[in-house]
């Protein structure tokens, strides 16, 4: 191995464009002059697939980017359509893993999705970016290579493709199109989706309406910047009123924009403290009521190898974990250690992001997606809220006031983000003014900050994926027992942060327990060796001692030792199998 290395170094100077050194595991590491592998170092690197990471794109282009990766990296990625959205758009789950003997199903898998809320679009790009980055670095970076070799990724760029496309192609605010598009009678008048907001002035944005009413209003215009509305103090009278979002009363009930497209929340419809609609808005009539969420639930239930979950939302800069509702109680301590380790590392990777508990630090969410994937399925799961406006001025010289937001828009985007107030003849209110920030201001970053957001979040996913369990037979040891018997101690280790069975999975009996089997020698008894110095305290197992179901598996960054009491010596074949790691087999001579 050593001679090969020097040979490669020697040749390095002769053919700089294509050469790389091979590290002991076979990974090709580009030499100084090579530009292969887009590994985060900027000098002269060029990815195999150039993708513009300063744009946000609709479904068609999002999928096209994934398809481009499939084509550029044959054998690494494929997709299956797991269902369709309400409007018939495909829900594509892309499976990413290195080709080889083991299929994705046999490896631990990291699930990443984005955009369950239709307007929270940049999660889609974050999913694509993660795939792109890993592929670009396979065989050029040891960790990326190891990860794609031993693990798989299930990637769903958008849970809500209807909402996404509506947000891109129709007039919206930053917050509208959160819902899916199944018609809902939001105002309970017997009609469905009959009174949404309207783009009255036809400029492609839903902004706000204000009306000049001298001496009768409750707002004034800011003295320095008349674009800004300032609420008057108590007992004072202003000259302006705010009339809400652009639109009018379509259904004659005296209200405007109260029953638009859809009107629910797909991130409230999952099992795991699911609550009915009147307790939790958007939940649907029963868990997984919305077809997109049902398709995903079926995918999860048929893929027990999923060992990590990341869901991308916007915005606010958060790394969220459950419980979503205080009523749930708390998570088992051993699992909290895993959450805290990943969450705290994530805070360092993601400036201004805070690691938070949903119900305690944000608000109560019943039936949240990552609540089900952990509370129902026992998988360590995070939701990241992508983008925080603090990134517009990292040193804090600009705050988050409306004036500062205007300053940033005026000076960093040449005023592109604001629709200036302009007059409009409203059928109900008479002459009004329409104006405000456009939909792509506030919850998504401006173009020049998109890539950083995607990269840091992709790295957080990789950190999480690297924490998915793996198992090795660390050591075996045999010793003589009275009566010609042999004690055969097998120590299993899991060097990763996440246990092979989370504490919750073990506690609630979720999934199938791991199993340790031994073949080739006659086993009379077996048990857990908790103290190697006091083997008489062996915790005996019931049932067949040669095939032991292990409910608690192998702890994260820990070991477990099983002692077999054998009638004879010989060649033993040990197998450790389970749902969330690559099964291991080990042949050993017991002597």
């Amino acid at each position, binding site marked *: 191995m050593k001679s090969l290395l020097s040979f490669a170094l020697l040749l390095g100077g002769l053919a700089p464009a294509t050469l790389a050194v091979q590290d002991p595991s076979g990974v090709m590491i580009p030499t100084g002059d090579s530009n292969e592998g887009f590994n985060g170092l900027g000098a002269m690197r060029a990815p195999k697939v150039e993708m513009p990471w300063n744009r946000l794109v609709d479904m068609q282009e999002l999928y096209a980017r994934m398809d481009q990766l499939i084509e550029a990296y044959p054998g690494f990625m494929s997709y299956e359509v797991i269902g369709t959205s309400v409007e018939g758009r495909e829900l594509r789950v892309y499976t990413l893993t290195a080709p080889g003997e083991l299929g994705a199903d046999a490896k631990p898998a990291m699930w990443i999705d984005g955009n369950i809320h239709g307007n929270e679009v940049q999660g889609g790009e974050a999913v694509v970016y993660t795939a792109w980055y890993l592929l670009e670095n396979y065989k050029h970076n040891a960790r990326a290579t190891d990860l794609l070799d031993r693990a798989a990724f299930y990637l769903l760029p958008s849970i809500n493709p209807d909402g996404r496309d509506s947000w891109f192609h129709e007039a919206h605010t930053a917050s509208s199109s959160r819902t899916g598009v199944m018609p809902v009678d939001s105002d309970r008048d017997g009609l469905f989706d009959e009174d949404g907001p309207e783009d009255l002035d036809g400029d492609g944005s839903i902004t706000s309406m204000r009306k000049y009413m001298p001496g009768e209003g409750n707002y004034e215009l800011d003295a320095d910047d008349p674009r800004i509305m300032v609420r008057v103090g108590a007992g004072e009278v202003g000259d302006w009123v705010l009339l809400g979002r652009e639109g009018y009363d379509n259904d004659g009930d005296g209200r405007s924009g109260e029953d638009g497209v859809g009107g629910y929340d797909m991130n409230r419809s999952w099992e795991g403290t699911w609550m*009915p609609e009147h307790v939790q808005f958007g939940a649907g009539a*029963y868990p997984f009521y919305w077809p997109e969420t049902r398709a995903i639930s079926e995918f999860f239930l048929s893929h027990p190898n999923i060992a990590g979950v990341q869901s991308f939302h916007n915005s606010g800069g958060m790394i969220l974990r459950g419980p979503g509702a205080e009523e749930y109680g708390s998570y088992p301590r051993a699992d909290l250690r895993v959450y805290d380790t990943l969450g705290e590392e994530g805070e360092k990777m993601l400036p201004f992001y805070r690691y938070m508990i949903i119900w305690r630090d944000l608000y109560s969410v019943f039936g949240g997606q990552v609540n089900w994937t952990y509370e129902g399925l026992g998988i360590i799961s995070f939701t990241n809220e992508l983008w925080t406006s603090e990134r517009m001025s990292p040193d804090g010289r600009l705050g988050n006031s409306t004036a500062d937001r205007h300053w940033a828009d005026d000076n960093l985007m040449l005023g592109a983000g604001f629709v200036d107030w302009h007059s409009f003849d409203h059928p109900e209110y008479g002459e009004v003014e329409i104006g405000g920030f456009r939909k792509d201001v506030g919850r998504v970053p401006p173009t020049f900050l998109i890539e950083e957001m995607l990269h840091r979040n992709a790295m957080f996913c990789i950190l999480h994926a690297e924490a998915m369990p793996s198992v090795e037979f660390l050591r075996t040891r045999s010793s003589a027992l009275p009566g010609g018997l042999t004690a055969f101690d097998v120590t299993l280790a899991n060097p990763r942060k996440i246990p092979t069975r989370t504490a919750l999975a073990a506690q609630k009996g979720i999934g199938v327990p791991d199993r340790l089997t031994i073949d080739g020698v006659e086993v009379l008894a077996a048990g857990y060796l908790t103290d190697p110095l006091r083997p008489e305290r062996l915790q005996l197992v019931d049932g*067949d001692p040669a095939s032991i179901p292990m409910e608690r598996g192998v702890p994260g960054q820990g070991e477990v030792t099983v002692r077999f009491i054998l009638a004879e010596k010989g060649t033993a074949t040990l197998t450790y199998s389970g749902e969330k790691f690559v099964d291991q087999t080990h042949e050993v001579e017991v002597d």
Partner: protein
Amino acid sequence: MTKTPSFLLAGALLCAPALAQTGPHAWPEPADVTRTIGELSAHEGVERIWLGTTGAGHDLEALRFGPDGRASNHPAILVVGNVTGDRLAGTAVALGIAAELASGSDAATALLDAATVYVIPSANPDAAALRFATPLEHTVETGDDRDTDRDGLSGEDGPADVNGDGLVTWMRVPDPAGTYIADPHDPRLNVEADATRGERGMWRLVREGFDADGDGTIAEDRARDAQVNKNFPAGYTAHTAAGGIYGGSERTTRALMDFALLHPELALVLTLDAQDTLVSTPKPGQGSSGRVPTGKVMSGDAKLLEALGRHFGEHVENAPKADSLVAGSFQRWLYEQRGVLTLDSALWDLPKGAPEPDEEEAEEVLEEASEKVMDELAELGYVEFEKAEVDMLGELGYVDDTADEEMVVEEVEADKPWRKPGDAHEQLEWVDASGESWRFVDWQSFDHPTLGLVEIGGWAPYAEVEPPADALPGLIEGHFAFLASLGELLPRVEIASFEATHLGKDLWRIEARIENPALLPVVTDAASRARTSTRARVDLYLPEGASLIVGHPVGFVNRLNGLGRTGSDGELEWLVTTTDIDAVRLGVTTRNAGAAEAAITRTEDR
């Protein structure tokens, strides 16, 4: 004796081919249900509705009774049989009701004028089908299979027919650590030994089964675990074998919920199953009015149920008490999350104690008994006794073969006055007296392959929930009569007044009062809490050229309580300018109480 209703003939025919394994019953198999639904749907005004396919591939179907073309918001009642899965009598009664509804009788016609009726005769066909399986096991588990004993295998060690008698019953496994002994009042029954009084347990009581996985435990991991009527997301508990993998994970569960969601016109649901809101009317408990439903009925609804329970008592005798709003059930989901009052009848339970025969009947029995004894004695070669002599022997206790047992019991009672006979004892008395001997399998010794000598027997599958066949006509008649009485109680919207008053020039003040003159409200307490779309919508139609000065063309009445409760808010008003006041019209629509229209009337000019 009540007159046998004509529709029972149809019911009897459809049941005929499906003789159950144990009892003398003739329950409809899934195929019979399907066929009967087909036959009934050939009648005028009857429509067949497919709800979906169950997990095991059965069709889940309903029948709709009511004139074709009727508005979809005409109030409706849903009748559901056997959601739990082991209540085949519920299906038989539902089919009987369906046959009566299709018969065109006066009662049926009157009901169908007032209400559209949907009938789902067999809401859980997967479980119902297991009633006809061999061997026969009392089973309501049909869904998602769970590794109950956490050994990495699923469904490898379920209950089984060990002694080959065709039934899965119980085993008494001799065990010094066991907690059971024979009930001194009836040694066929098991009671827990009371160690504080010096009793020692003699056996464990376990389901009949093998230890198929060799783990030392019997029948602990059955092949299917989830129960449909514990799978509804109302009071649902995660991570239980019976509940399934999540609320609504079973196909049958979802098909039933989808049906209810498609029919917001449902004003009442009558279930013929295992729950009861009609005999022991549920009382509103603490927290019943909170935002999160807790399995308690809300106070206004409790009063309505009480009234409906009184109606029920007038038509159905001896209905049993049972639990209500059971966690994870269709009944609880319908009430708490759709806001529909569910009227639940548990139909039947095992009577307690031997029935007291009337004198005439008793004489007949004695007569028969005497003749039987004489015949037996004759067969044995004894001299022929005169009947009077046999009677005398009987009085002396010689031919009473229960005399010895009674003596033993008396001794026990003297010895252990603290041990009272339990319900099961009285139920066995009824079984013995009624001749329904299939209901209890006498304990038989059996050499179990892994446990050694055990006793196998006990209550037969379904024995405790299935009424005798001769109870069916009465159950159908009573429940149909109750159903028929509900028509006039259903909410219906009416425009009590719609008046215009001329105020001057072309200006008119218009006032309307909307009412519901029935007992039941348009919006129950539970519907109000669940915000299901049942409020009344009021549309004011103006002629061309008219202008609305005050009010909106669309309004809503949130509460139309009916006679059962006060506090409706059905009064609305508008100011309108028009030169054609007589052309103004009012329309009211609801989701479950019909619709009404009115032309305007003028009051005296002011």
